[in-house]
């Protein structure tokens, strides 16, 4: 050979592409899936200090990428053929260790695949590995994982290590830092949206029932939903389309057709009614967040939407309701970890001792706190006062939204009450930590879809997100409005800086 082959795309450019652009690049043969996958594997190896992955699976990934390249060469392949993504380590993956960030699942290798990750695999996606998370997805800073803290790639001027948010902190850090094109997350009280906001990426918690929960390690079954975490709104639409769908193996999965979410992206917001709930303006909310919220409303107004003040009167009770119901469901779901059927076993003289030794060693402090609260609120004599009471207030919170959606098509709020905080500034009082989810948790209680879009920077130069909430099964309206905010904000991601 006398001439050098043209090299249109540099390796470090590959990790900056969106899912949609990479898909186009593969179709045009600008690069192969093996090249793309290798670029990510190299980036992962270079950024292990972020601790975004609990387990990297480079060999599996390259084998899958080779298979994808063959399919692409034949002009066949699925909607995500050859695209390297990361899977939160809460989704069971057949033949690959799944930890839920907990010591108690030590050595657990599922013999089955979660429906959502199966859907992604079937569509041709290449899994790069399993991302770090708060233990059993319980946390808002990714500091309760048995496998260590995740570090946000973003830095403040003081250079301290910041939290990427949680519980899907590994997925958020991976997508932000270029260690995966996109990732899966799960959201029980804000665990997709809050880390997406802290890391400057897009995250959507779909309507409860949109994605199957089968094969996802259960936390609070009436609140848990899987969703995509991506570089932009289009990618979220693309990925959710593949993840979602009815699954007879999850009796709460909705027997509804999944719309083509991408169609919503070009529809604009002309004539849409956007609600601004006054209760979300928290006392002491930082000025930069209030200003960004106002800016978001202005962008939508300029694009032809009508801004309407609304009230969601029971908002302040969402977190207290959540901290009854989520621990109650968790205490029941986590009863299965007994040291007998899978995971860690710490011997004991009697069966009860074996249970107690295994569970006390295997679960971290936050998980034990929640199991204890849940056990208490479900125990005889307290069930009515706590559990039933919380279920009743949940009804009122849901009715607030039903009334609001008679007046508006979508609701605009900030995603979080602050920007990312430093890992050494984490609150010692668990209740203070819980307040991170104050703006996101209502959507879980009411089962509604919520999207976080990066929209600006805090006074310290850290990403801030705006949240959109929609009626049940209307993720399309979130993508419609989210795209307009994204275009107006022209937010520069970590990789673009």
């Amino acid at each position, binding site marked *: 050979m006398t001439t050098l082959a043209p090299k249109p795309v540099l390796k470090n450019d590959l990790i900056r592409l969106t899912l949609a652009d990479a898909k186009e690049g593969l179709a045009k043969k600008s690069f192969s899936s093996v090249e793309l996958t290798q670029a990510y594997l190299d980036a992962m190896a270079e950024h292990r200090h972020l601790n975004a992955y609990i387990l990297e699976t480079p060999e599996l990934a390259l084998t899958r990428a080779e298979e994808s390249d063959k399919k692409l060469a034949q002009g066949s392949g699925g909607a995500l053929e050859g695209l390297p993504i990361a899977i939160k380590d809460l989704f069971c993956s057949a033949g690959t260790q799944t930890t839920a960030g907990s010591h108690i699942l030590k050595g657990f*290798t*599922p*013999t089955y695949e979660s429906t959502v990750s199966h859907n992604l695999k079937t569509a041709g996606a290449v899994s790069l590995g399993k991302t770090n998370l708060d233990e059993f997805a319980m946390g808002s800073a990714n500091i309760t994982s048995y496998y260590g803290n995740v570090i946000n790639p973003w830095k403040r001027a003081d250079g301290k290590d910041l939290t990427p948010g949680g519980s899907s902190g590994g997925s958020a850090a991976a997508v932000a830092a270029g260690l995966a094109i996109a990732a899966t997350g799960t959201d029980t009280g804000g665990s997709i949206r809050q880390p997406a906001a802290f890391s400057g990426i897009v995250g959507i918690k779909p*309507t*409860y*029932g949109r994605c199957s929960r089968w094969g996802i390690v259960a936390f609070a079954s*009436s609140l848990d939903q899987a969703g995509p975490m991506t570089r932009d709104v289009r990618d979220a639409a693309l990925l959710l389309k593949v993840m979602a769908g009815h699954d007879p193996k999850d*009796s*709460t999965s909705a027997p509804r057709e999944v719309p083509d979410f991408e169609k919503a992206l070009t529809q604009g917001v002309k004539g849409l009614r956007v609600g601004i709930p006054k209760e979300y303006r928290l006392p002491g909310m930082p000025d930069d967040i209030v200003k960004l919220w106002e800016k978001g409303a202005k962008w939508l107004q300029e694009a032809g939407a009508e801004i309407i003040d609304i009230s969601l009167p*029971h908002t*302040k*009770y969402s*977190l*207290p*309701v959540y*901290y*009854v119901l989520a621990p109650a469901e968790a205490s029941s779901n986590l009863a299965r970890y*007994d*040291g*007998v*059927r*899978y*995971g*860690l*076993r710490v011997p004991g*003289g*009697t*069966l009860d001792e*074996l*249970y*107690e*030794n295994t*569970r*006390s060693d295997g*679960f971290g402090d936050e998980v034990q*706190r929640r*199991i*204890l*609260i849940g*056990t*208490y*609120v479900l*125990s005889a004599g307290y069930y009515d006062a*706590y559990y*039933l*009471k*919380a*279920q*009743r*207030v949940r*009804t009122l919170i*849901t009715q607030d939204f039903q009334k609001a959606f008679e007046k508006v098509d979508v609701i605009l709020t900030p995603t979080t009450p602050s920007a990312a905080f430093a890992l050494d500034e984490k609150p010692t*009082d*668990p*209740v203070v930590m*819980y307040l991170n989810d104050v703006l996101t948790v209502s959507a879980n*209680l009411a*089962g509604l879809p919520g999207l976080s879009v990066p929209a600006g920077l805090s006074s310290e130069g850290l990403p801030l997100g705006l949240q959109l909430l929609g009626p*049940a*099964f209307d993720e399309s309206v979130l993508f419609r409005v989210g795209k307009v905010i994204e275009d107006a904000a022209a937010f520069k991601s970590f990789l673009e800086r």
Partner: protein
Amino acid sequence: MSLDKETVKRIATLARLKLSDERMGPMQQDLNHILTFIDQLNEVETKDVTPMAGVNTPAMPFRKDVVNDGDIVEQVLANAPEVACNMFVVPKVVE
């Protein structure tokens, strides 16, 4: 409502968790913080409100009562810490 040490101990037994003496104090304090936070719910009038267990699931679906799984003993036992004769092993529970 405030939890005393005895109550925390009783809940821990129900949950099959063991709290050492040095962990008992901080755990009791944390749980009481959380319960104080939860007690805000008493401000809300809920007399005629129906409790809600879940969302978007108006009717529980039924499937045909047929065998659709099974003969996977190996898979069921694959992750067990201790196995004998195709069974999970536990400490002796009968005298």
